[in-house]
């Protein structure tokens, strides 16, 4: 799903074209109010963050339906404008992007993630033979990895439309013996333990309402020695003195979450903590926010083309709402609230 990247430096990034959006929202500076109001807001904020893993049953069901519906509805539009990869492209920091760069950048994102995780490529014994693509979209990553490694790739998505499209594209590309797609929940993966040499989650972690269960399932289906790669949107790490994000930050995140069917966010160090709790090894993380930043001006430009506009207008309310919320993502990025992160680790070898 398209999101805006966050800057890591103190100077916010204002690529041309973003200036209008960045200034519209303004910086919501919370004017200090003494007494009960402040204490209540702080408590609410704390509870909101702590509720990360405790979504009610009804809310979780609604979230899954919302996600499936969003992608059933918008996948076709997305594919017609951007192609079969639904994730951000990786750019050199500070470089302007154009539409024609984007597909290459999306491929580069996959390769950079594999390199970061040190996934063996050339050794026929060590390269991955089975891969699970968690939150697979229409299967761009799966098909790419199937081609690269000759591996069996299994993708799971909540969206039946995406799974069917993924299978159709695999057949078109002569990969139907290598890549297959099923409808399943990343929090209840329909596989026995220890099946996969590479566990891949590219920009899907944002949708998982229970991050601990999400990572626990990734670990469960990983074979001993397998690498796990998570590329996802997070909020900034909290300072040691903080219990939660600031109220205006939480408010901004909530507005973004409502539009994109995203549950509460966590930070990169939350993921690291979870990985450690699960005894995963060789845990590495990086902030790639600056490397995805060039994408947004290109998205906005595409939305403003005739093809983009007409596609949006015919594609349904959910997709339109997602597009209208782009300025909020840009705002979050400029404030250093939103981070594009990679977290990788390894399942321990069998004892």
């Amino acid at each position, binding site marked *: 799903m398209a999101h805006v990247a966050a800057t890591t430096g103190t100077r916010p990034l204002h690529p041309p074209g973003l200036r209008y959006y960045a200034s519209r929202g303004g910086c919501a500076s919370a004017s200090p109010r003494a007494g009960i109001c402040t204490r209540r807001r702080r408590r609410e904020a704390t509870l909101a963050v702590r509720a990360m893993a405790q979504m009610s*049953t*009804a809310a*979780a*069901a609604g979230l*899954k339906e919302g996600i499936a519906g969003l992608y059933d509805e918008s996948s076709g539009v997305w594919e017609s404008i951007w192609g079969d990869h639904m994730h951000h492209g990786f750019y050199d920091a500070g470089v302007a992007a154009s539409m024609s760069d984007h597909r290459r950048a999306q491929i580069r994102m996959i390769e950079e993630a594999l390199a970061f995780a040190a996934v063996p490529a050339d050794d026929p014994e060590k390269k991955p*033979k*089975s891969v699970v693509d968690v939150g697979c979209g229409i299967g761009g990553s799966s098909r790419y990895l199937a081609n690269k490694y*000759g591996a*069996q790739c*299994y993708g*799971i998505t*909540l969206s*039946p439309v995406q*799974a*069917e499209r993924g*299978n159709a594209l695999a*057949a078109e590309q*002569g990969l*139907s*013996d290598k890549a*297959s*797609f*099923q*409808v*399943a*929940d990343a*929090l*209840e*993966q*329909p*596989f*026995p333990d220890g*099946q996969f040499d590479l566990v891949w989650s590219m920009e899907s972690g944002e949708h998982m309402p229970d991050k601990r269960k999400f990572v626990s399932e990734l670990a469960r289906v990983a074979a001993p020695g397998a690498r796990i790669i998570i590329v996802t949107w997070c909020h900034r790490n909290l300072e040691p003195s903080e219990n939660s994000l600031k109220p205006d930050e939480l408010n901004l995140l909530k507005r973004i979450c409502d539009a994109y069917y995203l549950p509460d966010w966590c930070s990169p160090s939350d993921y690291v903590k979870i990985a450690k709790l699960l005894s995963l090894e060789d845990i590495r993380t990086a902030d790639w926010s600056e490397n995805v930043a060039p994408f947004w001006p290109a998205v906005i430009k595409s939305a403003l083309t005739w093809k983009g506009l007409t596609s949006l207008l015919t594609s349904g309310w959910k997709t339109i709402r997602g597009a209208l919320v782009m300025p909020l993502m840009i705002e979050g990025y400029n404030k250093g609230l939103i981070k594009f992160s990679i977290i990788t680790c390894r399942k321990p070898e069998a004892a």
Partner: protein
Amino acid sequence: MRLLTHNMLASNARGAVTGYPLKLQVVKWSTKEVEPNADFLRGILPKLDWPALVAATHALGLPELLPETPPTDAELSAEGAAEEEGGPLRRLHRALLEIHIEEGTLVCPDTERCFPISRGVPNMLLHEDEVRN
């Protein structure tokens, strides 16, 4: 859905002991020919649950396709194995990769919970009350 995929799928619903293998009920299926790859088949053979694969072919009405015991690596790597029509490699290849289930149902062996296969896509989503805590 190919039978290779079927061999990988399990039910995670509450009440399932292993949830594996899923029983297969087929309404519509087709075959799509694809070049066999001996190295791939030799590599995947040790990872297969052979009785589950055989049961799936029986459910398709193809009891003669696979033997009760799996082929050996020697049989798969023999000279000309890939060309031998009706030989062990071609039979394994057909079963795993060339059969596509378009419409049907996967049934959990422990709970009898049914997962639909629609337009070639299995839907393994659980209802909220089936999720394990």
